[in-house]
């Protein structure tokens, strides 16, 4: 079982491919967290029963596989039939019989299960024809949706560990660093630090032993790129880390992953055990004499532990308080030793760069931001999910061409990028290219890839308040500007959203923010004012309306508006009354409905369901 040489790996790959080629058809069911929540395991069970009871695996040479997250989560459970590439969405156990009879046996496509394009309204059969997927260029996500993440042979059949074999036997550590440098790869966790340079500095540091770590603490709310990679292709991360350990000269490493991702932890742990068993991790990897092993360290529910120095404290069994990084972690990191820490997506890119070549990666994207980036496109957008596209693509292309535009075609208001360290960008900035540097000039940043789309029913002042609350909860409390300053910023925003804003509040926010940025100890504090400053910059009128007129025109800040049903628009369909959780809407069928202002909690459920937009903000 143990693969003792590069030659053995090549033959294992050949065998694995041949095994898989025996199947003429494959049913791939997504078992990522999203589809699991929608019941995809029951779909798998139904398929399994149907296939076994009718011997379809032998009769049709059919394989059934569970895969990682396809990224199109809102449409799950997702099923793909290969090699035809037929894409079915929203599959329930009761649909399985139809799929087996009609599609698998008779080769017919079931229209009602096909994805319907949100804009053309046409049904799309082919996976690759769906705009959401067609415009993607999947490198970090190359295997996800195609392989069973629990089966190492699936990975090996897809050229898995070939990059490692090449690095260990055909390249010196310096040559590996050179290749990664030439590729232009920059840290995908958001920092954008040149990966090759980081590895080189660590390699040259004198102290021993060295460590190579993975940051899987993905704390930005709205981002789930790393979760999908860890669930759907854990071996890609492991392979990348072993290559990195070879380059830097490390024998030990950790994957630090947040405890809120139990499925990802499970899949990574299983992958580690399988890799060790096959001699691809641990002692004497591929019989080359190089040893490197990985352990999993789970986070304890602290966003700050995504910061490198706090992460390393947490791995060492301490509380996650960052330290001033006047001496970098590549010189003194985990246990005060030279440490390389890279993000999940960065690690996932590394094997591809080694096998396909640095030039190929560098040819994609832009000059200073090469390659591709995975984004999680969520919020008020029609096609929510994960996408991977070349750097330099514009916000407009992402949100409208791939994302399909705003749900129910409501007006676009803003897109929030970069998580709590980032900002909100308005319509006027939609043609900006997305890369490491351009969005920063506009007041936001690309960050780890979370992109939250907002429509006219999102209040930008409330959004700033939300992010400040998040940061108050997550601040470690070590330094005064962040602990006290961000708390005070939050207090001001709470007051404004409550209707207690005062003239001069905006100036106070700006002035305090300057000091928080200048004096905070770590990046959490230093970037904490970004959401509020970017919304003041691009949406000043909303702040003025909240403070001077006590009005929230988006209909979010509950003290600053009421809902009223327009008599002209209301058709009396009654959907609002049905949706109301406090039963405060009265009206007869086909007659104008009315909201009881005293009972109304302004939750917005009626506005969400009204088909004619009759619920108005007053």
């Amino acid at each position, binding site marked *: 079982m143990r693969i003792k040489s590069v030659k053995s790996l090549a033959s294992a790959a050949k065998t694995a491919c041949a095994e898989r080629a025996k199947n003429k058809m494959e049913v791939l069911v997504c078992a990522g*967290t*999203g589809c*699991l*929540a*929608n019941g995809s395991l029951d779909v798998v069970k139904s398929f399994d029963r149907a296939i076994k009871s009718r011997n379809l695996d032998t009769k049709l040479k059919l394989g059934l596989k569970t895969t990682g997250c396809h990224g*199109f*989560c*809102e449409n799950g459970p997702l099923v793909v039939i290969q090699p035809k590439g037929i894409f079915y969405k929203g599959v329930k156990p009761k649909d399985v019989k139809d799929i087996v009879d009609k599609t698998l046996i008779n080769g017919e496509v079931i229209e009602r299960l096909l994805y319907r394009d949100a804009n053309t309204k046409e049904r799309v059969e082919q996976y690759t024809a769906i705009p959401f997927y067609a415009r993607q260029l999947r490198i970090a996500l190359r295997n996800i949706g195609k392989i069973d993440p629990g089966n190492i042979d699936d990975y090996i059949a897809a050229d898995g560990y070939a990059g490692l074999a090449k690095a260990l036997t055909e390249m010196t550590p310096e040559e590996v660093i050179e290749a990664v440098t030439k590729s232009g790869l920059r840290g995908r966790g958001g920092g954008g630090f040149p990966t090759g340079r980081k590895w080189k500095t660590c390699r040259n540091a004198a102290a021993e032993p060295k460590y190579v770590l993975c940051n899987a603490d*993905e*704390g*930005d*709310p*709205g*981002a*789930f790129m790393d*979760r999908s990679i860890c669930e759907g292709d854990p071996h890609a991360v492991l392979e990348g880390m072993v290559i990195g350990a070879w380059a830097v000269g490390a024998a030990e490493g950790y994957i630090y992953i947040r*405890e*809120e*991702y*139990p499925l990802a932890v499970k899949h990574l742990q299983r992958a580690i055990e399988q890799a060790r068993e096959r001699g691809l991790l641990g002692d004497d990897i591929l019989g080359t004499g190089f040893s490197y092993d990985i352990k999993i*360290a*789970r*986070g*304890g*529910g*602290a*966003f700050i532990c995504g910061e490198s120095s706090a992460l390393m404290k*947490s*791995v*060492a*069994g*301490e*509380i*996650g308080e960052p330290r001033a990084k006047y001496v970098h972690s590549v010189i003194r990191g985990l246990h005060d030793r030279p440490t390389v820490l890279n993000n999940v997506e960065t690690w996932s890119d590394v094997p591809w760069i080694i096998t396909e070549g640095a030039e190929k990666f560098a040819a994609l994207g832009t000059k200073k931001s090469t390659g591709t980036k995975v984004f*999680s496109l*969520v*919020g*008020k957008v029609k096609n*929510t*999910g994960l996408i991977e596209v070349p750097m330099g693509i514009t916000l407009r292309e992402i949100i409208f061409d791939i994302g399909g535009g705003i749900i129910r075609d409501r007006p676009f208001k803003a897109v*929030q990028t970069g*998580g709590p360290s980032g900002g909100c960008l308005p319509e006027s900035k939609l043609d900006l290219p997305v890369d490491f540097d351009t969005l920063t000039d506009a007041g936001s940043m690309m960050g780890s890839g*979370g992109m*939250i789309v*907002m429509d006219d029913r*999102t209040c930008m002042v409330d*959004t700033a308040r*939300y*992010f400040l609350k*998040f940061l108050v*909860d*997550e601040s*470690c409390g070590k330094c005064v500007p962040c602990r006290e300053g961000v708390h005070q910023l939050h207090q001001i925003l709470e007051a404004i959203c409550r209707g207690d804003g005062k003239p001069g509040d905006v100036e106070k926010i700006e002035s305090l923010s300057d000091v928080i940025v200048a004096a905070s100890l770590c990046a959490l504090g230093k970037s904490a004012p970004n959401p509020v400053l970017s919304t003041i910059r691009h949406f000043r009128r909303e702040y003025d309306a909240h403070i001077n007129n006590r009005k929230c025109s988006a209909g979010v800040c509950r003290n600053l508006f009421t809902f009223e049903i327009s008599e002209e628009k209301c058709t009396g369909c009654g959907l609002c009354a049905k*949706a109301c*959780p406090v039963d405060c809407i009265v009206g007869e069928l086909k007659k104008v409905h009315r909201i009881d202002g005293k009972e109304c*909690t302004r*939750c*917005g*459920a009626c506005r*969400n369901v009204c088909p004619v937009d009759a619920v108005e903000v007053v």
Partner: protein
Amino acid sequence: MSKTCIDPKKARKILDRYPEGDQTGLIHALQDIQAEFGYVPREAVEILCERLNVPISKAFAAATFYKAFSLEPKGDVVIRVCTGTACHIRGAQTLVDEICVALDIRPGGTTKDLKFTLETVNCVGACAMAPVVALNGEYHGNVQPGSITKKIQGGK
């Protein structure tokens, strides 16, 4: 055995897995205790401190710094409402308010009969199904106002 009284043998069994005096294992050990008892009881921490040679003040600091740990026992059903950004703009706050009213507790609190605990989580990574509520780890997506209380009270 009541929820506030633990079996020290269980705790010892968990902590014997850790090398004696291994201070770097503090967070993992606390996680194992949290998983076993549903919270971090003082008696278990005392055993941990002896085994790993960690001062109790440091274990207490870690147990209160990391939100994964609870010093109080939790309810039979732990309701976690995701308040990540995607869930927030799709109405997570309304769901939190609704559950607070229905169960008469605040976020972080547990009902007097120890049946329910309500927590908010800063993103579970299921953003495409926002807003998300997890009941004992089982995820429910696209939760509409009114529906989650029915689910909770249905199981009551």
